[in-house]
């Protein structure tokens, strides 16, 4: 099975990185591709999408004109409070419409009245207006013959920016707990190609929507590995959006997850839990000023059809038990993200003493009942590597903010520390805990740098690796119903992409 796998992954990934490199000149921020404004024209028309194993599937899409429809429809990026006008033209053989769950004061004019809203037919467009009254992540989709038209591709995402949105300090909901450094869209859907073929051939009477049996699974309208190819890739004209999340350690990545198909998809992200702060465009909050206090953390988010989720993902490498930068000495420079949690001494700690109160930002993040490895250093120095007297200790919460300190570890001498000196949870300087097997006993992944350390290119045999030019850590983000990691009968593919955690010196878009 392995030859296929390597082949599948290689061709477009290299291109993604090439493009990332080219774009890295300016200060542009990683964001979600889409169209902004208050007035939009959308045309519903047929087209073809491509799948990575070489298939071409007939679909119904939305776009700026009949020759530029796309799957999914354009992502509309709106501003809170704006009144939005969308005119829908149709070139489809059956009436079509759009509905906008979560938007306010939705009205429709023109066309003809359908079951759910007014519908467009060729020559008879419909104009919808609504107020984007609340920030958040939403979707829009056809309100006509939904059993068939969702399958055929008539849906898209809506992102509403909060009032006062500042692209240099972005938030999803205007609250501090919804701030983020990078945002990515994960719109998950599926297709049953047999239904698409029957529509293409006009054999509508043979379609049995209740028997749908999908064999293609998508993120943002692409199957892996195309998910990781550049956005707007020439060879995917009807599938302009990619999904290639990249971040540095410690950054906040906003995941906007949308269940856009008709099945539930358990979207699993390797690397860490993410905290869901909003669903369906509403902050999970018990009241004004409380932020997302009812938010919850998950390692898998079930994307339910028609439902949206905003989640904050972070990765710091906290308490890994070894130094993921590969430092072996305490005097090696501290890299960003290495001090997972920093607190301050609230009282002096004399030589030989074992108890101290801790305060400052980090104090609450110490574990409740367990010892952790920490560094203590003087506030006169910016970081522990600069302080020749830094000390490795083990810290355990005794009660409240009173902590027990075990001293004299790892080649340091117990000494006195002053009020305001720092204590940080860190694995800085701790060696890698095991010996890796010889290269000839390993099979290497194309996203492996050859070294366990972040930013460190190791020795890979010729022809191995290749998709990780900055020596990052890559984590698979995928549907955990693994049957959905297929392109028809070919593994791997489907609803899958990779998160890249890149060292700080690596540019991200």
């Amino acid at each position, binding site marked *: 099975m392995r030859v296929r796998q390597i082949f599948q992954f290689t061709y477009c990934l290299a291109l993604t990185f090439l493009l990332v490199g080219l774009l890295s000149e300016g200060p542009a921020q990683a964001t979600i591709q889409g169209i902004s404004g208050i007035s939009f024209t959308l045309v519903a028309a047929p087209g073809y999408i491509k799948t990575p194993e070489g298939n071409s599937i007939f679909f119904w899409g939305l776009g700026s004109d009949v020759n530029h429809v796309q799957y999914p429809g354009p992502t509309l990026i709106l501003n809170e409070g704006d009144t939005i006008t969308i005119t829908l033209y149709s070139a489809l053989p059956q009436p079509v419409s759009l509905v906008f769950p979560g938007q306010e004061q939705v009205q429709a004019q023109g066309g003809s009245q359908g079951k759910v809203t007014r519908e467009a037919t060729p020559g008879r467009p419909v104009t919808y207006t609504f107020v984007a009254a609340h920030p958040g992540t939403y979707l829009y989709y056809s309100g006509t013959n939904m059993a068939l038209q969702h399958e055929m591709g008539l849906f898209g995402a809506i992102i509403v920016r909060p009032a006062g949105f500042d692209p240099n300090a972005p938030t999803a909901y205007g609250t501090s707990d919804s701030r983020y450094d990078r945002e990515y869209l994960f719109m998950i859907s599926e297709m049953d190609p047999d239904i698409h073929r029957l529509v293409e051939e006009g054999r509508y009477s043979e379609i049995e929507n209740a028997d749908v049996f999908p064999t293609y699974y998508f993120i943002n309208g692409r199957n892996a590995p195309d998910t990781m190819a550049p956005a707007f890739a020439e060879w995917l004209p009807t599938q302009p959006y990619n999904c290639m999340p990249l971040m540095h350690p410690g950054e906040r990545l906003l995941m906007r997850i949308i269940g856009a198909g008709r099945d539930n998809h358990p979207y699993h992200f390797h690397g860490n839990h993410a905290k869901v702060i909003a669903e369906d465009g509403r902050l999970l909050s018990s009241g004004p000023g409380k932020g997302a206090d009812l938010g919850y953390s998950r390692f898998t988010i079930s994307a339910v059809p028609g439902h949206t989720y905003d989640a904050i993902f972070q990765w710091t490498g906290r308490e890994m038990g070894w130094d993921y930068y590969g430092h072996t000495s305490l005097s090696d420079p501290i890299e960003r993200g290495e001090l997972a949690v920093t607190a301050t001494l609230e009282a002096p700690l004399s030589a030989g003493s074992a108890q101290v109160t801790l305060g400052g930002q980090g104090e609450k993040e110490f574990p409740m*009942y367990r*010892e952790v490895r920490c560094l203590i250093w003087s506030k006169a120095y910016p970081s522990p590597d600069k302080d020749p007297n830094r000390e490795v200790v083990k810290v355990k919460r005794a009660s409240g903010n009173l902590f027990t300190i075990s001293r004299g570890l790892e080649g340091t001498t117990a000494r006195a520390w002053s009020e305001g000196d720092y204590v940080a949870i860190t694995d800085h300087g701790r060696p890698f805990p095991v010996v890796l097997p010889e290269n*000839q*006993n390993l099979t290497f992944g194309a996203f*492996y740098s050859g070294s*366990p350390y972040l930013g460190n290119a190791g020795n890979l045999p010729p022809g191995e690796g290749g998709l990780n030019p900055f020596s990052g850590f890559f984590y698979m983000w995928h549907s955990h119903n693994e*049957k959905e990691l*297929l392109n028809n009968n070919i593994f791997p593919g489907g609803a899958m992409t990779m998160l890249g955690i890149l060292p700080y010196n690596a540019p991200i878009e």
Partner: protein
Amino acid sequence: MKRDLLLFLAVTAFSLLSLTGAWGGVMVQCPEDLDGDGVSDVDLPHVVCRHLTGGDGFTVMADGRSMYIFGFGDVTGMPADQVLESGILGAQFPAPTIVLDEGDDFYLTLTNVGMLMRPDLFDPHTVHFHGFPEVASIFDGLPESSVGINMGSSITYYYHIAVPGTFMYHCHAEATEHMQMGMLGNLYVRPAQNSLPDGTDLKGFIHHTGYKYAYNDGDGSTRYDVEYAIQMSSFDPEFHDADLNVQPLPFADMRDKYALLNGRGYPDTVLQGPILNKVNGRNSQPLDSLVHARQGQRILLRLSNLSVTRYYTLSIGGLYMKVIAKDAKLLQASDGRPMSYDTTTVTLGGGESVDVIIDTAGVPPGTYVMYATQAQYLSNNEEDYGGMMTEIVIE
């Protein structure tokens, strides 16, 4: 017998190849292991070493059908020269349960013993510690972004167990195939709150030595008396047969017909003791799912789903479950208010876990049935009154 000859040849070949250096051979890494059996020989608090094999084997479904699997076997503490013989055709389903304590340093060695029935395959295997936070990619077990261990060799993974909770593990090499074939298991971490000094006051709840909790709740709300880890999964017999018979694998057509709890369908789920497979007589499904408690006890169920095809909903006739955690996170608002809730059903997709507590105070003694509410899965393929169902016995 032909299979015994194959086994002999395989062990001999592996040994020869590791002697020549072409294959790495069995190599276990465990701190202070002085005699090479992969177990610490001095008492190191918080060091845990396990040794698993990755290979193939056979199970038997509740309707009697023999099912070829890929899987993990437990060879912890076994001398290196016996590992291959134990591992070959020694796969278990589910994989050996891994239980850890918060704060542990966990060294997990995986030896790939190859798939005896598929000598044409040279698949590497991995261990993915599913849901565990902040693991570096080298120990994440994702072959695309790290390494897989080849046949005849061992790799040791290391994890600092910084958080408690109900996780799970599985092989991530050729994920759809290896997971459908059975490389899945229970894995959970007990919280540091268990080791508090006797008499500690937790917001009015007094801890006593021996009390056990599911999480570091700070208030005793997750205390339990008995715990059971129950993993949902499902098998497509056509896929397993195709793999055994070296046929093209029906990926797109995958339809699971055996819905399982801890690798067995009802009534095998309540059968205590071994189930010997029909091919080499190994006890490859050692885990039942029969839950036992005395009236008044609090039962912790650590539920997870590693089916590769679908969501399952579990319900218990006549009993409520209190959902205290999902995906290894206590249900708690940011100000510490509990967000646990009572329910009769829990629904899990692949790669999701929940912890539920059943308080049996005042519950009449008797046998209660836990079952999938998608009733079509209460079957063992064509045989009804089976599938994803087990019993909770309260005395």
